[in-house]
């Protein structure tokens, strides 16, 4: 066991992302619990009453919320259920929902007692010191963990790929980031990130819901709201009946969540990126793909499905002119990172590119990336795990590796240290 440098102390690893929360034992290769970060809730207490009672009561009313977490949380239709996501731009924005989410993963799914295990939590590179201290506080005060550590997802992704030095390209649900990692440390000055996936999502929604000369706008009704449907011919108007009884009880937030899911499903099953850059001829040669929506409407998508992925790598000039605050696309992010890195590092970073995150599973993404990189760096080498689990949960996997190393155990922030030094210890220890 010493040979492998591993020494398992039954640590837990919790990796919170915009789309899902992953938790499992350190040393495993797959997280035991994968639950959606979005959750449904009912406000049981009267909102008006709480506002009157003041700030002290607000905290209480939050805990009075009835929350629906896990696989049957937001995806199950409940009357009057709202859906919320505690993450904004990859950072935890609403900490009140975090303890129930973690508790669900650790206690309800994994059936373990957090107070018995050291816990390693991940954070994105652009996390604020206040956020990580808050996370430490939750762990020590609410879960009573014996030891805690917070590690950077960029570093962990590099570790998951078996590298100490890497350029990590991470495309998640909300954020796209390029992080240079050197000797297990993130170079914060070289970090660049943007909300590019949101743009792609918005673009996809725009394509689907706006009518074209060929077809009408597509209704993005989720199957939860449809009683029955009939199979219809290609491009024929759908014949289905809506569950009228549910319409009234459907909240706006749930509807948005459900529609977003429909868009994402369409995006990931139909969307493709051209490997060699945009080319009208090549785009025309690609076969159209059929897709059927929950309403029963089905059609073929030709150039649209290629157009949508192109947003990752190229913004049409017209779009740039109208939106000055457009999120940077991937080549720009990489360029920016290289510009802010030392010239000596460019060589080693470009030959250790690690591609991770669920967004990179977009059809043709890695091929396109390698062709884009190859233009400016002929020796660029991309490491992209073929296994979708490894690609999506690279951060968790790296945490699993790190927390099972014998040499790592001196880095844990113990409860004793937390009580002695307070929040400052987090910044000192987790560099």
């Amino acid at each position, binding site marked *: 066991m*010493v040979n492998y*440098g591993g*020494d*398992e*102390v*039954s640590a837990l690893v919790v990796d919170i992302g915009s789309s899902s929360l992953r938790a499992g034992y350190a040393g495993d290769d797959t997280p035991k619990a994968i639950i959606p970060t979005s959750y449904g809730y009912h406000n049981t207490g009267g909102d008006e009453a709480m506002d009157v009672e003041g700030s002290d009561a607000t905290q209480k009313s939050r805990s009075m919320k009835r929350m629906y977490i896990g696989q049957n949380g937001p995806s199950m239709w409940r009357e009057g259920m709202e859906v919320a996501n505690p993450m904004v731009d990859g950072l935890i924005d609403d900490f009140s929902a975090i303890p129930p989410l973690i508790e669900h993963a650790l206690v309800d799914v994994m059936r373990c007692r957090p107070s018995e295990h*050291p816990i390693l939590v991940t954070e994105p590179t652009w996390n604020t010191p206040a956020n990580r201290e808050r996370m430490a506080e939750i762990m020590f005060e609410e879960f009573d963990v*014996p*030891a805690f550590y917070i590690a950077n997802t960029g570093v962990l992704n590099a570790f998951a790929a078996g590298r100490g030095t890497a350029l990590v390209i991470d495309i998640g649900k909300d954020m796209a980031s390029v992080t240079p990692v*050197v*000797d297990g*440390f*993130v*170079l*914060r*000055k*070289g970090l660049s990130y943007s909300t590019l996936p949101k743009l792609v999502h918005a673009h996809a929604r725009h394509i689907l819901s706006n009518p074209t000369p060929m077809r009408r706008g597509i209704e993005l009704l989720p199957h939860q709201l449809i009683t029955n449907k009939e199979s219809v011919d290609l491009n024929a108007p759908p014949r289905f009946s809506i569950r009228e009884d549910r319409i009234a009880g459907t909240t706006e937030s749930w509807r948005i969540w459900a529609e977003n899911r429909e868009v994402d499903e369409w995006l990931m099953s139909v969307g493709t990126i051209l490997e060699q850059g945009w080319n009208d001829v090549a785009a025309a040669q690609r076969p159209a793909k059929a897709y059927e929506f929950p309403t029963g409407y089905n059609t073929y998508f030709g150039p649209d499905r290629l157009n949508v992925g192109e947003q990752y790598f190229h913004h049409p000039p017209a779009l740039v002119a109208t939106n000055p605050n457009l999120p940077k696309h991937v080549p720009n992010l990489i360029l920016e990172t290289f510009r802010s890195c*030392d*010239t*000596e*590092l*460019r060589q080693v970073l470009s030959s250790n590119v690690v591609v991770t995150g669920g967004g990179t599973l977009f059809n043709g993404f890695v091929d396109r990336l390698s062709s884009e990189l190859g233009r400016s760096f002929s020796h660029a080498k991309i490491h992209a795990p073929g296994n979708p689990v490894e690609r999506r949960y690279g951060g968790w996997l790296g945490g699993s590796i790190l927390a099972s190393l*014998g*040499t790592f*155990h*001196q880095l*844990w922030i*113990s*409860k*004793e*240290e937390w009580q*002695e030094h307070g929040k400052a210890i987090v910044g000192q220890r987790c*560099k």
Partner: protein
Amino acid sequence: MAASAADVRSILSIPAPSLAAGPSQQKKQPTTQTRKPEGISRELYSLIGPSAPSLVTLSKPRLKQKPNLGGGSKVKWECRAFKNPGRQDSLELRHWVRASTAEDAEYPFAKYNVPSNVFTYSQDEYTRFLEDKEWTKEETDYLFSVARDYDVRWFVVHDRYNYIGGVPRSIDDLKDRYYSVCRKLVRNRPWAGDETSKAQTIASYLFDKEREITRKKYIVSLENRTPEQIAEEEALFIEVKRLEQNERRFKKERDELLRTIAGIESGLPDIVEDEGLSNLAIDTKKKKNRGSVMDADSPAIPAMPVSAPIVKRPQTAKNAAFDAANCIVRTDPPTTVPVTKAAHQPAHLRSYKLPVPKAAVQPKITAALAELGISHSRLVMPTRDNIMQLESLLEATTSLVEIKRVVDKVEYDIRVLKTRLGMRESQGVEGRPGEAMDVDEGHEGDVVGEDGRAQSVLSTRSARSRKQTRRSMSISSVDTSGTATTRAGTKRQKRS
């Protein structure tokens, strides 16, 4: 064919044993026979009997060995709490260890906890040696604390370096300050070891900021090349290589020429060793040729090694006397054959070089000799004289055959002319066909002309004479082909 005990006894003339011993011996024998050796199947043993080869018994077939997994005994593991000596607090984590490990054994990973050795300095040292107008003591302290935190990983140190109220520093500024402080400290502190180790330590802290900046500028310029520039650069590189190669070749050729003209006086080393192994053979050959040429042209240089075997020795009187005294007979190489590798005659036995008649006349010669009862193919003693005699014999036979051929031809001609004369006498002259044939005759050669006319006369008469025409034709064709080959032969000689 096993010899029984009785046979042995009868051979050795031993008297038959007593009856009491007999049965016991007979009993014993079957027991030894039935015992089957290990590693041989029963069926095979019953077939081959006790005379089984010993090899079979050596290689006993066995099943694949089971892997030895740690002795096979059960290992007891325990979940134990442990303390990490790398930690200052009292955190106890639990892990599984073998129950056999000692309770108070040191944590196996503690040895990897190596602190980085970053220099520290006192206030006094700072004021005495380390003052720098660019850096305050506070900032220097900060730099050293960051370097210690990140184990002097400069990229990380530079990334995290954020001194409030300081000027922005480049990575080279930080390195320069850090290493200059280290050098000064090593130089001024009392040193325990000898001077060389001190110099080595100082050398390990050397840092030339200007050079580093220039180097990075080069890297940037290298990365900023356009594809056209890269292509141009590559083309230039290839061009330079080509030029270099040409120059080297010219130099070599010049040296060779010098050596050829001036020999050793050129002052050039005789042997050129920078050639590869493949060139070596050619080189030596070249040298050999050169040596021979020089021998022939400028015998004034005796230093040159005489290595040419084809050199013609001048036939001096002294040589002749020496040869006569030692019974040496020199055969001149065939002068008509050009001096090539193929013409070179290595040492050989005379019996391998028996003279043979020309291929064209060989069957006739063989026949003639057979008629005379002489065997020319086997020479019992191929001495020089004998071979000369055989040669003259063959020559004589050849001329004999040749003469006979001419005689035959003349006789035939006479016979033909006689026949013609007889025919002319018996009947009148027929001019017409003869004239036509005369035209043909002019075209053909002299020898054929005779036959042609004969044929022209006879053709009107008999089929037999037509056959003869064909023969004459064939002869003429053979002749022309013969001349063609000889011509080719002379041409080849000329060429080579």
